[in-house]
């Protein structure tokens, strides 16, 4: 089991004497094996929220629970894919992928074989022994993705992981993530600014507004699984996309649809 529950989470950042209210009263429940996306314009606190779940940043108020216990620190149950690839430049692509198994003493020939396979899947076959500085930006993102998947986290937190990829690679990675998720059903919180991506991948889309960051609406995506890119032309898909987009537009006006609503759905 691996569910995430945020209850009335708030966060302020201090700059000298001033503080900015980055998150206000954010509540969200992500069930075990559920795929939830966070969309909202940049600066609305998506990264901050993800970092709070990851245990990298402390919330000022409210509760953050994973499997019912409060989050106090990062852990290998929660994999994190950052906005920037954050590979270790002193390790080859393969050694980056094997960082987790080595750190936790689970390194083995099987782990190595799995890492090679993962790198093959993300299209980095033949680049296993390259250093990150020898890769293109998109390749670094894919290497980081393979590295995160290697840890087999129960909860995967992703911060605009495909934002820097070209359209073709992005589609491939999305499909790969969908297939993987279909087989393993880990819990996912995906931050994205791509409405289509959010609709394609998610069970629910949480729409955030800025200043202070809050979830104004959670939209269930009742499309059948397994999903694929072909669906994106169906009327249901197009309609859901419009619905999310309208919600994001409304979020610009910062008027919460219903303050009582955020935790609803599913």
């Amino acid at each position, binding site marked *: 089991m691996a569910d995430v529950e945020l209850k009335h989470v708030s966060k302020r950042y201090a700059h000298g004497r001033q503080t900015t209210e980055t998150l206000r009263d954010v509540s969200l429940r992500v069930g075990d094996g559920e795929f939830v996306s966070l969309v909202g314009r940049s600066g609305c606190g998506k990264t901050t929220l993800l970092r709070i779940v*990851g245990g*990298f940043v402390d919330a000022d108020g409210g509760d953050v629970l994973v499997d019912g216990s409060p989050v106090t*620190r*990062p*852990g*290998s149950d*929660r*994999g*994190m894919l*950052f906005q*920037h690839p*954050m590979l*270790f*430049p*002193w390790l080859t692509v393969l050694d980056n992928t094997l*960082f*987790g198994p080595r*750190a*936790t003493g689970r390194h083995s020939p099987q782990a190595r074989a799995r890492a090679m396979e993962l790198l093959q899947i993300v299209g980095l076959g033949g680049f296993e022994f390259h*250093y*990150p*500085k020898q890769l293109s930006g998109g390749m670094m993102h894919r290497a980081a993705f393979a*590295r995160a998947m290697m*840890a087999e*986290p129960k909860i995967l937190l992703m911060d605009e992981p495909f934002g820097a990829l070209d359209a073709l690679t992005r589609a491939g990675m999305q499909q790969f993530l969908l297939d993987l998720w279909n087989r393993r059903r880990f819990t996912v919180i995906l931050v994205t600014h791509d409405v289509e991506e959010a609709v394609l991948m998610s069970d629910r889309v949480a729409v955030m507004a800025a200043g202070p960051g809050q979830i104004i609406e959670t939209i269930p995506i009742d499309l059948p699984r397994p999903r694929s890119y072909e669906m994106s032309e169906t009327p249901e898909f197009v309609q859901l996309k419009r619905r999310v987009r309208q919600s994001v537009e409304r979020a610009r006006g910062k008027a919460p649809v219903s303050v009582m609503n955020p935790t609803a759905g599913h």
Partner: protein
Amino acid sequence: MSDNPAARPAAPVVERRGLLARLARARPTQPGEIYGVPGAGETRMLSIATIAVLIFIWWLSTTLGWVKPLFVPAPQAIVQDFVTILRRGYTGEPLWLHVGISTARVFGAFMLACLIGIPLGLAMGISPVMRGIFDPPIEFYRPIPPLAYLPLMIIWFGIGETSKVLLIFLSVFAPVALGARSGVRSAAIEQIHAAYSFGATRWQVLMRVILPSAMPEILTAMRIGIGFGWTTLVAAEMVAATSGLGYMVLSASQFLQTGIVIMGIIVIAAIAYMFDLIMRMLERRLVPWKGRM
């Protein structure tokens, strides 16, 4: 392009912008080169030419009698001094012994400074307690020239090897420890977070993320440190030494043997340069991932 006579005078103006403008203008990329890397390009030929010109001017000014040999002996006289001392030694000790003793003092002090300074610097980087304790003493003594506390070393530790090695140690220790300390900040916080999220412990994060990130800065600090070590050598060997290159230079100067003084300086420079080459090789070996692109 245009035949309009009014446009003509504009062209020479562009050409007359001169050397500064030409230096400021970006060059087109050469084959096999990355555009815009500051200071890219080969310098070896230029360096060799510079050295050759300097030696030539030196030779010329001594041969033509512009300076007295007491002040600047001719280059060939210095080669002669070198050969003589190589054969007969200096003050009863062979040259290799002077070289060996000085190298042992500098290198020993350097090793000791690295062994203590790097872990301490890392500890200062990651622990406010360690930083609070060790920052004041290090920052206090760091700007003081070694010659100023040399008398104290002698009063406290006598005129034996201890005070000499300690003096060199102190001059190497501060840059190495401070380099390691600031190297700790080289790791991006997301890299550290990533490591934690893969299940790494605090110790593993230190050894596998913070230390490798700090490595380039530590190696640079070591290079600077060993340079300081050689700089302090002569001061250290002023203390009742009977051997060593610093001693050789100082005692030769008392007998106005300028040739030996210059020869000693060149030998010190050559050894220090060799150490620098070794450090650079170590850098290439240990941090091959560092560098642009």
